[in-house]
């Protein structure tokens, strides 16, 4: 049970890459972007319904930009609120209906403004995460003095990883770790090494869903409880993360390699000159050993 004073902020980053979703709609029509957004909305509503002080934010991560679906600037208007509340008509908690309507409206706007561009087909996830961190930071500053706020980020990922965003991604991860912000990941299609690392470093949960149509169930079961409650529940155990680095020359994953002491670039074979910073190195060849040498104790 959270104390009265504690505010829990959940930021959901939804990957709305139109290319992937468009192709997905043709591959498996069971889960479309609409269904996905419905499931996310259900999670958002549940989160806000848990405690009055819970807050929500939803960011759409597109290949052109990142867009805040909720809350957005149009919300503050009082007359708008009145109309929407009466229009829903089913006696729903006002906050929830307002949120849902806003999200729906925004996503419609975002998707209709999608332009066709050949060069950028990848989701700008690192940027969305950075925006989420900034939002969390702003909210924690706006809160009253003495009030605690706990935040976490949930990433619903659809498309594949983008290797070019590696640096920014890692920076975001470490910034989140410093701020004690959990990053959870719900992956729909292909495993994402970057998100696995993010979850491992910040202490969040990484889950790749076996059945896409049950997305809502997975979201509610695994990602609705916050970090304190998770310790009391039996949730999927953390997966083993492959932290092996790839060598700079071949981009193969290696376990043991050579590292240049000047520029820290990793190589799988020794070369006398580092190709990145052009430092020369000498290496001692192993000495000739006598044929009868002591057999070292084997260690496994």
């Amino acid at each position, binding site marked *: 049970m959270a104390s009265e004073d504690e505010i829990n902020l959940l930021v959901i980053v939804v990957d709305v890459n*139109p*290319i992937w*979703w*468009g*192709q997905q*709609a043709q591959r498996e029509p069971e889960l*479309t*972007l*609409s*269904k996905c*957004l*419905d*499931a996310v909305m*259900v999670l958002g509503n549940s989160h806000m319904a848990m405690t009055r002080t819970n807050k929500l934010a939803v960011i759409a991560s597109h290949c052109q930009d990142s867009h805040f679906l909720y809350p957005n600037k149009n919300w503050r208007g009082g007359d708008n609120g009145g109309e929407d509340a009466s229009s829903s008509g089913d006696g729903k908690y006002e906050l929830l209906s307002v949120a*849902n309507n806003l*999200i*729906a409206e925004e*996503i*419609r706007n975002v*998707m*209709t403004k*999608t332009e*066709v561009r*050949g060069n950028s*087909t990848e989701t700008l996830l690192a940027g969305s995460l950075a925006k989420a961190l900034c939002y969390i930071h702003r909210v924690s500053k706006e809160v009253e003095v003495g009030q605690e706020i706990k935040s976490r980020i949930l990433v619903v990922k659809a498309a*594949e*990883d983008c*290797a*070019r965003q*590696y*640096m920014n991604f890692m920076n975001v991860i470490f910034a989140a770790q410093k701020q004690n912000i959990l990053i959870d990941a719900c992956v729909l299609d292909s495993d994402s090494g970057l998100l696995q690392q993010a979850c491992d470093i910040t202490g969040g949960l990484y*889950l790749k869903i*076996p059945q896409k*149509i*049950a997305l*809502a*169930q*997975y979201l509610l*079961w695994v990602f609705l409880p916050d970090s304190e409650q998770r310790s009391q529940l*039996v*949730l*999927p*155990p953390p*997966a*083993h993360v492959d932290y092996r*680095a*790839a060598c700079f020359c071949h*981009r193969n994953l290696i376990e043991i390699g050579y590292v240049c002491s*000047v*520029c820290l*670039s990793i190589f799988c074979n020794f070369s006398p000159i580092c*190709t*990145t*910073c052009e430092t020369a190195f000498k290496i001692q060849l192993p000495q000739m050993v006598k044929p*009868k*040498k*002591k*057999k070292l*104790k084997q260690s*496994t």
Partner: protein
Amino acid sequence: MASLSEEVLLVVKKVRQRKQDGTLYLMAERIAWGPEGKDRFTVSHLYADIRCQKISPDGKAKIQLQLILHTGESTTFHFSNESSALKDRDAAKELLQQLLPKFKKKANKELEEKNRMLQEDPVLFQLYKDLVVSQVISADEFWANRLGDMNNSDPTPYNNKQDVGISGAFLADIRPQTDGCNGLRYNLTADIIESIFRTYPAVKQKYGENVPHNLTEKEFWTRFFQSHYFHRDRINTGTQDIFSECAKQDEKGLKSMVVQGVKNPLVDLLSLEDKTLDEGYGVSTTTPSTSNANRTVKESSNAAIIKRFNHHKVPFFFSSETSSTDGNSRDSDFFQPPVKKVRLQEAIEYEDLQRENRLKTVALNLKKSDRYAHGPVPLQSQHYTTSQDIINSVNHIRHEMVNYKPNLTQVLSSTAASSAITALSPGGVLMMTGTQQAINQMIPTEVQGELKHLYAAAGELLRHFWSCFPVNSPFLEEKVMKMKTNLERFQMTKLCPFQEKIQRQYLSTNLTGHLEEMLQTAYSKFHVWQTRRMLRKT
């Protein structure tokens, strides 16, 4: 019976032990007693085993000597010769006093060392218990390597004996006891005598001159304590005292040191004076002549204490300059300016407040900095989407989302939900990896602890075993064979019962697999070595 080669230092007849008459023999390395009429010794103690000896007080009827051993046992000898019992006993006591210290240090030191090592290191202690107490290897083997390592690598602080300092209150500690009728009794031990000699070298000199020619030791010390030299007054009355010369010598010594001066240019001893501000805070002009007489009386009573303080402090004050003064005393004037400068500089500069000298750095010169942009991630197969695909997808999505309306009542079907729940419940598809991680929670902690001890013991034995290779000398050959039998014994006595125990507890995990593997490697190595040896011999 004593071996013929043993040298007998003293024989005392008519010594009783346990109410039996007999003879006491003091030999080169041991003390022994045999009953009268028999040739064998019933009691024999090595000097190394004796912790200390005690004698009965002078007044008692029975003249006895007691030996206390390290183990705590004690043996009492009663000297029953009517005429010479006391002399015999004293002779025995003196001889023992000389001999015991020689043997004492050797035995103690080793034992103490071993005990200390065992107490300090609980891992070593456990190893000792596992290996020696359960007789897998003998204690000598155990200590053979350890003590060798200690002596070679780390010269223990016990070897470097520091000089024991003199306690500041030692003179006060010699509390005299009243002897009944107006006399005082001082108890002097060797330590106290040494302290007195170190504090007052003049007394040592006098001791060397007078004892034992002119005075006995007892007389010397009596006179010492009687002399005013010892007491606080230090009023040099009468020259009958041999110690008055000491006082004069001390004064001369002090004066010469003051004249010699301190080499610290910032300190000027000669200008120090006892200046007191008289009444009027130094402003008044009262004639000092009237108070002269008073002053001398006061001065003389303070002078004694001041002299004592100076005598104590002077060695400290001047000893700090010994390193620099010895060579430079002649050229002190010539060298004075630099020394003074150094001193002044020392006083005004602080090293850590000065600006740091930044090291010159080299700029990083990267030729291919784009390598860092993607970081050390492996190359992943790119999905290449044709432009046609892109256009199609975008159009499709746009079409779909134009009329998006959230339909929150139809988000999830019950079958989908239940299958998801099954996957997420314990035992489901997603929960499988969890059980494998709990191995250290499944095994009880005592079993874990025992396993750790087994590993430590096995590691020790294997270390001895593997250090024998390559086998160059017959000593190593023997050791290898011994270690192999030790390993086998270890396996039988320790490892197998442990395995049975965990099997009985239905712990299915294989905890001892690795240990067995290590032992098997050792056995196979031994086997190979043995066959090679056989081939060489034939």
